[in-house]
């Protein structure tokens, strides 16, 4: 390349760079200029506070008026009054959250405003951090003046949750309450405001061990009799599996729902002798507060197909929901209400599993908060679906005693060596006599890697299953559900992490290979299956890629060391 051409190329390059820099400078400076000359957005001048926050999910029930209420209340006014009352609660909650009572005059006036403001200021002075959320209201209008300036209402079922922390951030109170309030509202400056608010009754809902009341199963639904599950008058022993489609596990399941594949998998489960399948409903993916109708239809299709294949379903709710902030509880309540009321009569459902392994959130969120939400949701679940059993999939037998008296079915997960299973089960049984207990998840991966020692063979998996099932058969357990049907190609990082030694085992926990062929353990799940699996010789554990690779490395190392020693002896130095 000639020197002139090289210079030309350099100059062209420099010119191009200058042009780019120049254009960028003009663009940025013009945007800045435009930004500072634009002025305020005219829309901000009309800062109209909406009466109802769009994403509020507080349950509002309007009861019909009774007796003489002064003046007939039209629907519009009734709605306005209810919204004003709800707005007052919202402003009150927000004032607590911010530690600032500025928003209260929007919704309160007179003595109620003074009292609410004083309380919030007092809480701030005392260093209290109060989280207060109203979850439901049952309003009955009791008076409406002829000139439309005064109204009273009674809140016959105000459901509230409060978390109070002290100066150090430590929780000093968590509680859910059910209260009755009498409120006087006056119409001022074009809007209704709460002038008086008096709590007249109060019940603390301590749901930790509160019996919810027995479910009332309809025909073809599973019920509880002592420590057994019963279907159509006969004991029902769960032989089940946790399920995701092979190609679309976890978050890919419902968006890629394919009825033909589901049908195929349900037939496979049935052919394995299984009678129960456990599935998961991701909270956010299903739409949170506003449950997506299309996904709800898919869930309905799954249940219909399961019913047609004589399979019962344990539906696990709120999967991957880790935010227990009380401000979001109304949204999860609506999620629960939508799903449970839709399928409350579905015969395929064996139980609602309220949350998968919520105890794993104890450390991050705090046990009080998690348990408070669970107790609240348990109560609601029984209200929305009085027919089906309710359970929680605890991550271990040790923690499965939580809410033991409140749950219809105790479900724990166990991935520990099966040798201690009987002891763990016995401990749980002692704590919860007379309640049906199932092993909701267990399994052993057949993943192996040359670099990590925690691999297992399919023969080991079969032995594991034989040991677990044999142990369970000696107990009064109401059944078990294995994890999982298939080996998967990928596992989201949110499930078990993203390191190879974390995802690998998760990918190969199935009883069927990715191509659908069964592993030896698959034959053991069928009720009455022969669990006499030949024990493995002691050396069989070393016939795995890791140990073989390790052996190879040792041999290689030995060979290299031998050569080095020989060179040294021969006076040739180390290298």
């Amino acid at each position, binding site marked *: 390349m000639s020197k002139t051409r090289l210079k030309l190329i350099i100059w062209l390059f420099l010119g191009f760079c200058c042009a780019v820099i120049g254009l960028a400078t003009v663009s940025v400076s013009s945007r800045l200029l435009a930004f500072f000359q634009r002025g305020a957005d005219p829309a901000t001048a009309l800062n109209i506070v909406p009466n109802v926050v769009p994403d509020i999910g507080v349950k509002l029930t309007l009861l019909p008026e009774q007796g003489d209420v*002064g*003046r007939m209340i039209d629907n519009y006014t009734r709605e306005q009054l209810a919204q004003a009352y709800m707005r007052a609660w919202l402003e009150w909650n927000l004032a*607590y959250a911010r530690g600032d009572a500025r928003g209260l005059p929007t919704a309160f006036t*007179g*003595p*109620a405003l*003074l*009292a*609410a403001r*004083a*309380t*919030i200021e*007092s*809480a701030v002075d*005392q260093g*209290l951090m*109060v989280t*207060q959320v109203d979850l439901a209201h049952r309003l009955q209008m*009791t*008076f409406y*003046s*002829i*000139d*439309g*300036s*005064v109204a*009273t*209402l*009674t809140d016959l079922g105000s459901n509230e949750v*409060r978390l*109070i922390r*002290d100066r150090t*951030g*430590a*929780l*000093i*109170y*968590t*509680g859910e*309450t059910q*209260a009755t*309030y*009498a*409120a*006087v509202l006056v119409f001022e400056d074009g809007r209704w405001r709460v*002038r*008086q*608010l*008096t*709590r*007249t*009754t*109060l019940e*603390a809902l301590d749901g*930790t061990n509160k019996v919810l009341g027995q479910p009332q199963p309809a025909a073809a639904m599973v019920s509880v009799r002592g420590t057994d599950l019963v279907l159509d008058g006969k004991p029902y022993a769960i032989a089940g599996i946790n399920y995701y489609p092979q190609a679309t596990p976890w978050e890919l399941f419902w968006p890629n729902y394919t009825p033909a594949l589901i049908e195929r998998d349900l037939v496979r489960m049935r052919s394995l002798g299984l009678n129960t399948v456990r599935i998961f409903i991701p909270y956010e993916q299903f739409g949170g507060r506003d449950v997506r109708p299309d996904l709800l239809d898919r869930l309905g299709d799954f249940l219909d197909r399961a019913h047609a294949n004589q399979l019962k379903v344990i539906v696990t709710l709120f999967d991957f929901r880790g935010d227990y902030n009380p401000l979001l509880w109304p949204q999860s309540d609506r999620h629960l209400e939508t799903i449970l009321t839709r399928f409350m009569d579905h015969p395929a459902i064996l139980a609602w599993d309220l949350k998968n392994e919520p105890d794993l959130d104890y*450390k*991050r969120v*705090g*046990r*009080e908060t998690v348990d408070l939400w669970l107790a609240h949701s348990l109560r609601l679940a029984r209200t929305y679906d009085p027919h089906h059993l309710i359970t929680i999939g605890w991550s271990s037998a040790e923690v499965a005693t939580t809410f033991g008296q409140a749950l219809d079915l105790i479900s724990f997960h166990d991935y520990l060596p099966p040798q201690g299973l009987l002891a763990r089960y016995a401990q749980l049984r002692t704590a919860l006599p007379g309640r049906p207990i199932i092993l909701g998840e267990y399994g052993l991966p057949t993943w192996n890697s040359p670099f990590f020692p925690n691999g297992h063979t399919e023969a080991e998996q079969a032995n594991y299953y034989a040991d677990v099932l044999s142990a369970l058969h000696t107990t009064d357990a109401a059944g078990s559900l294995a994890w999982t049907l298939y080996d998967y190609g990928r596992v989201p990082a949110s499930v078990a992490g993203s390191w190879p030694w974390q995802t690998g085992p998760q990918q190969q926990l199935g009883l069927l290979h990715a191509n659908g062929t069964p592993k030896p353990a698959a034959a053991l799940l069928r009720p009455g299956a022969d669990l006499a699996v030949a024990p493995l010789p002691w050396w069989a554990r070393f016939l795995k890629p890791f140990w073989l690779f390790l052996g190879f490395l040792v041999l290689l190392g030995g060979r290299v060391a031998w050569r080095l020693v020989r060179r040294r002896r021969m006076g040739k130095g180390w290298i």
Partner: protein
Amino acid sequence: MGRTVTQNELLKPCIHRFLYLLRSGIFLLALMLVACTARPQMPIQRGVQLPMMVPSNVIVGQSIPVTIGPSAEPDGTMVMLIALDSFGPRTYSATLSGGSVRFIIPGEDTQRAGIVLLMARTPNGYGTASIVLQAGPAIAPLTLHVGPHTVPADGISLGMVVAIPNDTYGNAISSGDPVELRFQNPTGTIVTRDVAAQNGIAWIRMPGGTQAGRMLVVGRAGTAHGPEADLSLTAGWPISFTLMADPATLPADGHRLLTLRTSVIRDRYGNPMPDGTLLTLIVTMPDGTMQNIPAYTIDGVAEAPLQAAREPGIAQAIGTVYGMTSMPLEITFSAGPAVGKIQVVAEMDQQSHLLRVRVGPLLGQLGQLTPDGTLVTMVVTDAAGRSQSISGTTDTGYASATIALSALTPGAGRVNVRVGSGQGETAFSVP
């Protein structure tokens, strides 16, 4: 030749560097562990049930003794008491002494009526109790809301009075507490009604009656009184009324005014319409034009002036208020202002090249001069047959006007004058 470096000397800096890196690593690891470890949360120990002794009912503003114990926990153990009233929490703390502790919740913390949840906790114990704070007696002034402020005294419509009695701390008084409401009707009779407060208010409907006027309302709750409130009772829908004109007739001079006046407009119970009630007078003039004249009642009577027509004839007027229409009233505008033959003189003013027309005297029916300012229109027709109008106004019975000769075709012409029913004409010749 330099000194031979031993293996130890070579290794030493490496070892130091390795140890340095190891120390740094351990330090960083410890730092990360400290940073990443979540703040431990002490679980709330529900634990042993703590007995709590509290009164079941207390009047707001009074201090509340709360005794907690006996507890097996050692003396000096911190006890926290949380009081959750209608509006929010307050916390108190003290230490166990002799197995129990006594709190006095001060009166300034018990000012909000309603049920209060009390929770006591120690490291190993938890107790709850509740207490009802009852509102105190109502205090003055007792607020009354009267609405609507005005109702028709038609025997059907109702007013309403709502009392919102508060105690000293702004709490609504307890349900069932009596509130006395007194009404003084426009007739002067006084009615007393006792109402029980419910849901924070006491209310009652007030029949409007049939007597228009002002109804006074006064409330009392216990010893608390309040200012008076009032309710205006107005007449109901009007019934038939008549219309009259004063004077009954006028000459059609386009100037004079007559007064249209209604009879007293009343409702079926004889209550006159309230002052300021709008009545519309619809007048059809002799030439067929219509006028809508607003009028407002005073003492039940509405009146408005009507200007005389220019043309003689009969005008028709009706009054309408709230859909009720009066019988039509006929008003006669007689001929005028001038009658008979009118003298007209047309003179040439050669110097100023004008034709000067003088009309008069213009006389009324009784021979009187027509009012000054009466408009007189003169129609000048020249030799070519072209007509032009000129006008003037009367002054002491005479009116005059001029027209330029240049505007007229030379030859014989005529001037015609018409004022009211009077007419006159004259001839002229333009050279």
